[in-house]
């Protein structure tokens, strides 16, 4: 199923509206905003590690009520257009909703999800700088990585029982999550993520990348390629979770851009350990409370 009924679309929108953000970012936002001199860069650094807050900020700044003359694709750009105080207060209002629980009725591993999203984001940005610097903005590729699996969180929150079955199916078989989702829910997380991004008038390239990140015949745009390769590397490094682990022999992503040696691409990313450690730090500090 690639079409979602308008009523479901509306309900999914409300689910996200009410969805709290991740523990670490909520704590950090509350902490740094108590200081009137908190620096804008500190705030941006926290927001852009949280898929929920990032999604909501982009939703507001791209909204029809404002209709800014240009599509806003990053948190930095949001700060330029709306000012840091407005972004701070948006973040605070999202933080006030609460904290996304580490456990949910679907049994979906929120920390693993966050780890995968953060590493995919960091890798996608780096891949863009190395392999596609003249074709896309590395910051845009970062956002694509951060938000690409957002549909899974929506499933876990919105239809936990069905998503639990999806996860059970993943555990039993080695079928990747999106196949089981299609079968058991009727739409996969790429469709739901893209639908929301489209509904909120995100830039078309971002919507397309979210929609096609599991599609073998996705057009070879820079953002698609970098996202799909970053997703694959993140999973290869063990961040795929049980719902989509890396398997030997997965088809290569656009060899015309990246070549056929995955090891070389990983090496070109630079210090992946450091990127992984940064993500772990964010995820684990969030778990401790």
């Amino acid at each position, binding site marked *: 199923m690639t079409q979602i009924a308008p009523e479901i679309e509306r309900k999914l929108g409300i689910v996200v509206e009410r969805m709290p953000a991740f523990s670490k970012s909520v704590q950090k936002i509350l902490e740094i905003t108590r200081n009137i001199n908190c*620096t*804008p*860069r500190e705030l*941006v650094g926290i927001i852009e590690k949280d898929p929920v807050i990032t999604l909501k900020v982009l939703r*507001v*700044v791209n*909204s*029809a*009520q*404002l*209709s*800014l*003359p240009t599509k806003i694709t*990053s948190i*930095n*750009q949001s*700060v*330029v*257009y*709306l*000012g*840091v*105080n*407005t972004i701070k*207060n*948006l973040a605070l*209002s999202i933080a006030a909703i609460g904290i996304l629980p580490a456990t949910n009725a679907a049994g979906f591993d929120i920390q693993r999800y966050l780890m995968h999203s953060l590493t995919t984001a960091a890798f996608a940005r780096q891949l863009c700088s190395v392999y596609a610097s003249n074709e896309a*903005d*590395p*910051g845009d590729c970062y956002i694509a990585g951060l938000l690409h699996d957002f549909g899974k969180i929506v499933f876990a929150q919105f239809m936990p029982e069905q998503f639990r079955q999806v996860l059970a199916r993943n555990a039993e078989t080695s079928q990747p999550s999106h196949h089981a989702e299609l079968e058991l829910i009727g739409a996969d997380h790429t469709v739901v993520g893209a639908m929301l991004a489209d509904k909120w008038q995100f830039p078309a390239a971002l919507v397309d990348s979210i929609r096609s990140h599991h599609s073998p015949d996705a057009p070879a745009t820079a953002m698609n390629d970098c996202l799909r390769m970053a997703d694959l590397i993140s999973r290869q490094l063990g961040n795929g979770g049980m719902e989509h682990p890396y398997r030997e022999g997965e088809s290569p992503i656009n060899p015309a851009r990246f070549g056929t040696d995955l090891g070389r691409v990983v090496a070109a990313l630079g210090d992946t350990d450091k990127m992984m450690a940064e993500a772990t730090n964010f995820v684990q500090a969030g778990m401790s409370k």
Partner: protein
Amino acid sequence: MKVRFWGVRGSIPSPGPKTIRYGGNTTCIEVRSDAGELIILDGGTGIFALAQALLKELPITANVFITHSHWDHIHGLPFFTPLYIPGNSVRLCGAHDVVTGTGIEQVMGVQLQYSYFPVREAEMRARIEYQTLRVGTVVEVGDARVSNTILNHPVINLGYRIDCNGKSVFFTGDHEPYFNIYDPGDEDYGEYQTLIEEKQRAIDAAVAGCDVLIADCSYTAAEYPAKRGWGHGSFDSSIELARRCGVKQLVCTHHEPTRSDDELERVFAEALSHFSPGPAVPSVILAREGLEIDL
């Protein structure tokens, strides 16, 4: 087109013997199109004196454009007397508030609450219309066109340009020049610099060639560094803007509430001393209550 200043003070009304020459009322500017259409920029306390003057020409149709929702730009609105008199029409235009999710009606609604003001909106007898503006929308007011540009302040602030028969006025409301939130050497520095340069070019294009630029000149260059991020410009930053955009006359406003008339003139003269007027910006003056500019 005619421009008249009714309030030129920033932040808080500052009446008293030390501000008598420039005035203590907060922001309010009246603009009349060639055909006499009434456009009011901001509803600070200056709007009360304007309201008294308008009582002589009832019924009126007023088009009030609010740059942003901070108190000093709206707190005269409930005292805009024509709102209470049947037969008048008041259109209130301004930006959507992204944090509260409300439209421009909020700037009135928030003030007309039982605890803060004795009259309810339902009791106002004029025809009141609220128009929440999308960024970049042009509003036609008779023979004048009002366009808006999003500027840089802690809350969404629209700068307004009014064009009428080849003449133009731009009012910034409150605006601070963009600065890079990263340090040179930070990974994001270059990207952020590109973003602010792009945004600045869009603002320059909106200000370009206007006859009168009325700009937020709260600070001196020396005061500014301690106030960075507060959302206000300086004499120097506004002169720079005027120069870049080929503005014919710059009117400096949003005077600091603590600044006496004498001090205001002193810091203004000092700012002008390191700027040589010339064809780039032929005239730079201070806004004062009662100042009229004919275009």
